[in-house]
């Protein structure tokens, strides 16, 4: 009986080849990586800093830093996760410099603010897209996530907006998996509670 062919090698992420070429000085390869991830890096930076000029600077700095440190990229993680980690660090540094925020460390804000206990139990009907136009909905979503402590905002952005896995989020933030899960739960519940003010079914009681 012919042996069933098993895949001999694990599938290699296409970024690996690009990174290898870029390491050897092929700037076209690096340019392709920039094109692939600039939108994501800009979005992450904008979510964390809530400031457009900062997000522009961070996007530039993150890619330059990545280029300079390419040799340090071992390929143990995805290139995109490594890049996001650089952008997150740059973003948090920027927040600290601005000092407009009381809490910018990934650890400080976890004890504060216990808005994570659900209080609003109204259903969202009709659904938010039926209730608001695109522009208004965008305003609500921006305003709401802006009110979240930076540590929670960062975890939510990586895990839920960028769709990184819990493990990748932990790696990008230098946190443990349980720490990511705990922050993620609180971030989601706080956002839900805040959005509920806008989206809840009219005439429904806040609590019963």
């Amino acid at each position, binding site marked *: 009986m012919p042996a069933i062919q098993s895949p001999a090698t694990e599938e290699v992420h296409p970024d690996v080849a690009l990174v290898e070429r870029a390491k050897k000085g092929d*700037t076209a390869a*690096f*340019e392709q990586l*920039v*094109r692939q991830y*600039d*939108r994501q890096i*800009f*979005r992450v930076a*904008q*979510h964390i800093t809530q400031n*457009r000029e900062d*997000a*522009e600077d961070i*996007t*530039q700095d993150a*890619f*330059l830093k990545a*280029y300079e440190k390419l040799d340090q990229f071992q390929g143990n993680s995805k290139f995109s996760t490594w890049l996001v980690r650089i952008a997150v660090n740059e973003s948090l540094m920027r927040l600290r410099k601005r000092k407009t925020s009381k809490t910018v460390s990934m650890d400080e804000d976890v004890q504060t603010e216990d808005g994570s206990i*659900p209080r609003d*139990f*109204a*259903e*969202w009907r009709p*659904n*938010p897209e039926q209730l608001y136009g695109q522009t208004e*909905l*965008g305003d609500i*979503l*921006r305003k709401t*996530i802006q009110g979240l402590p930076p540590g929670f905002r960062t975890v*939510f952005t990586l895990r*839920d*907006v960028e*769709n990184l896995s*819990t493990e990748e989020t932990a790696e990008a933030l230098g946190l443990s998996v349980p720490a990511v*899960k705990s922050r*993620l*739960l609180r971030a*989601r*519940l706080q*956002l*839900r509670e805040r*959005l*509920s003010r806008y*989206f809840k079914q009219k005439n429904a009681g806040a609590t*019963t």
Partner: protein
Amino acid sequence: MTCTDFLSQLTDYFDGKVDPKLLAEVQAHICECHHCEVVLDTTRQTIAIYREHEIYEFPTDLRERLHAAIMKKCTDPR
């Protein structure tokens, strides 16, 4: 299962990673407790709405400008 117990399982529930021994209890709680059913549904919507809406614009001209600046610095001899 209490509402607090349910909340502690919420993240794993979304990921489909609830301990099989607990899953039936979680599902039973959702059927019994309207508040938690709403929390589950509206949290799911919270995640979906942020994932589906690009809330920050990244216009082409900005993108091109950033791109050019990055590549210029990468290719500039120091």
